[in-house]
């Protein structure tokens, strides 16, 4: 109010009024909060993550390998363990789905947490420095992406031998590329903008220009890519495990679906239904949340 009163004399020095600008993130947050679908999807993901964490800590659904009924018992209400029936050995399909959730969520998280930063660093360095560094990095990821993704995944998982580590490595090796491509493009766009030149004239180091100045301006791509990588890692794990190259001796969704392909002819549908439904909801939640995030973070819409 004081500034309005003092405006009687326009030239009089006014008290500095603190104007708090809204960043891209503030706007995005406001928009996301209004988006009820996005909130629901976020809650679904949090729910899956909680289930996975509780299963990991051994608080729920343990042990999954206990025999809880006859072989191929149909789903029944009552005992929680029989909600989704039993598998060939009489183990609870519901517990297996929960442990599948644990595996899927950890594969998604580990892959995204490692692959996205790797992609950011490679893409940023290539785009920022240009020259031979750029050429080498671009050659490297063009080579990797010239091998059809599924072939590369299969080849890496196969050569490393079966198991969850092979899955992690093959997924990380293939999924940093998308992020690197986007980051390289953005860094090329940003590196000659005025704010970067200004930082340069103030003596900012390359490191600080890349990570302190440019990176925050392109960080919304990282969030979007994170959710994309999370989904594709979950899907790829299921396919690799289904092909017998993935998780061994643990109830991953892919292993369950692999078992189910022989059970269907006997009318045993619950193992397949359990695994695919569980996978469906988490992928759906990520897809919708990803779309909402993209809309919310789009600087063109305000």
């Amino acid at each position, binding site marked *: 109010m004081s500034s309005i009163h003092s405006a009687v004399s326009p030239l009089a020095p006014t008290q500095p009024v603190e104007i708090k600008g809204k960043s891209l993130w503030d706007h995005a947050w406001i928009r996301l909060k209004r988006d009820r679908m996005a909130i629901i999807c976020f809650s679904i993901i949090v729910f899956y993550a909680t289930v996975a964490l509780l299963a990991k800590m051994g608080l729920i659904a343990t042990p999954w390998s206990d025999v809880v009924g006859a072989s191929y018992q149909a789903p029944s209400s009552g005992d929680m363990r029989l909600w989704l029936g039993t598998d060939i050995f009489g183990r609870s399909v519901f517990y297996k789905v929960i442990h599948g959730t644990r595996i899927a969520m950890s594969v998604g998280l580990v892959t995204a947490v490692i692959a996205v930063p790797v992609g950011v660093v490679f893409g940023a360095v290539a785009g920022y420095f240009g020259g031979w560094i750029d050429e080498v990095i671009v050659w490297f990821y063009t080579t990797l992406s010239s091998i059809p993704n599924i072939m590369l995944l299969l080849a890496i998982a196969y050569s490393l031998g079966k198991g969850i580590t092979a899955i992690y490595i093959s997924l990380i090796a293939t999924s940093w590329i998308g992020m690197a491509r986007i980051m390289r493009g953005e860094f090329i766009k940003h590196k000659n903008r005025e704010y970067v030149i200004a930082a340069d004239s103030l003596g900012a180091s390359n490191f600080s220009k890349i990570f302190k100045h440019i990176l925050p301006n392109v960080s919304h791509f990282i969030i979007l890519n994170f959710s994309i990588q999370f989904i594709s890692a979950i899907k790829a794990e299921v396919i690799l495990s289904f092909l017998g190259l993935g998780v061994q001796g643990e109830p991953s969704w892919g292993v369950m679906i692999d078992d189910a392909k022989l059970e*269907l002819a006997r009318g045993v549908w619950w193992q397949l239904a359990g695994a695919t439904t569980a996978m469906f909801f988490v992928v759906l939640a990520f897809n919708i949340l990803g779309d909402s995030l993209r809309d919310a973070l789009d600087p063109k819409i305000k």
Partner: protein
Amino acid sequence: MFVFLVRRIVGSIPVIFGVALVVFVLFNIVGGDPALQMVGKHATAQQIADIRREYGLDQPLFVQFFNYLKEILTFEFGRSYATRQKISDMILNGIGPSLSLAVPAFLVTTVLAVSIGLVVSYFRGKLIDRATVLLCVVGISIPSLGYILFGQYILAYKMNLFPISGFDYSWSGRIEYLVLPAIVWILLSVGYDVRFYRTALLEETSQDYVRTARAKGLSEPRIFFKHVLKNSMVPIVTNVILEIPLLILGAFLLESFFGIPGIGSITIDAIHNSDLPVIKAMATMTSLLYIFGNIMTDVVYTLVDPRVKLK
């Protein structure tokens, strides 16, 4: 045009070399002794030695790499360990079945997706648009294995509409066996494509020339079908062409499930049999096809979009 083509092919040599290097390192170094992987745990020393000699694994690594490059250039990958067939013949025989599934399924998907994309982007924001968008996101969230297994179970096994799996090289036989996998393929991919084409069309409707056309007082259908549609042919055609190189790969899981003896099935069988020479050849060949497909894409792209000039 010829110069452009030659330049693109020469330019892809480092990438082809890179692919060969990656595949070689993966299978001959990272994977451990290839001979041991092929024969399994219960082999005699003599068997291992025989395999080493047949596949040249007794030679130094750089000689092996050199031989492998020679294999790529001559398209002569030796014989499969599991079936003793010549691998180059296996690949050539696999392309036909793969394409006879992939091409019709791809065409139908594209026509369907472009049409739906057109309708919903014309009615953008209306109920039909929002419902389709929701349906698409639900569709692409259903796991592909779910589509395949439930499709096979319900349509073939329960309702007896189609054979469960198999393949016949005669044309009528192909149709009989390929309809169901083609339907599953279409269901699997139409959601992605509709989303893509809808976005491309909507992006075009936010361009300046559309505002100008509206300001001129042109009718909405005229703006949409005359101006927008013509301009959005570029992203549409680009996307179609970009997907063509992938068709040669077929659909791994679909082929394997429906017993179609294509590239995908051969690869998955090879993985189950630890048939290293075949996996290696498949990884190499599909990558090469993919690289050349991309070069062709660039060529066609320059023909479609007048803004892109041959460099």
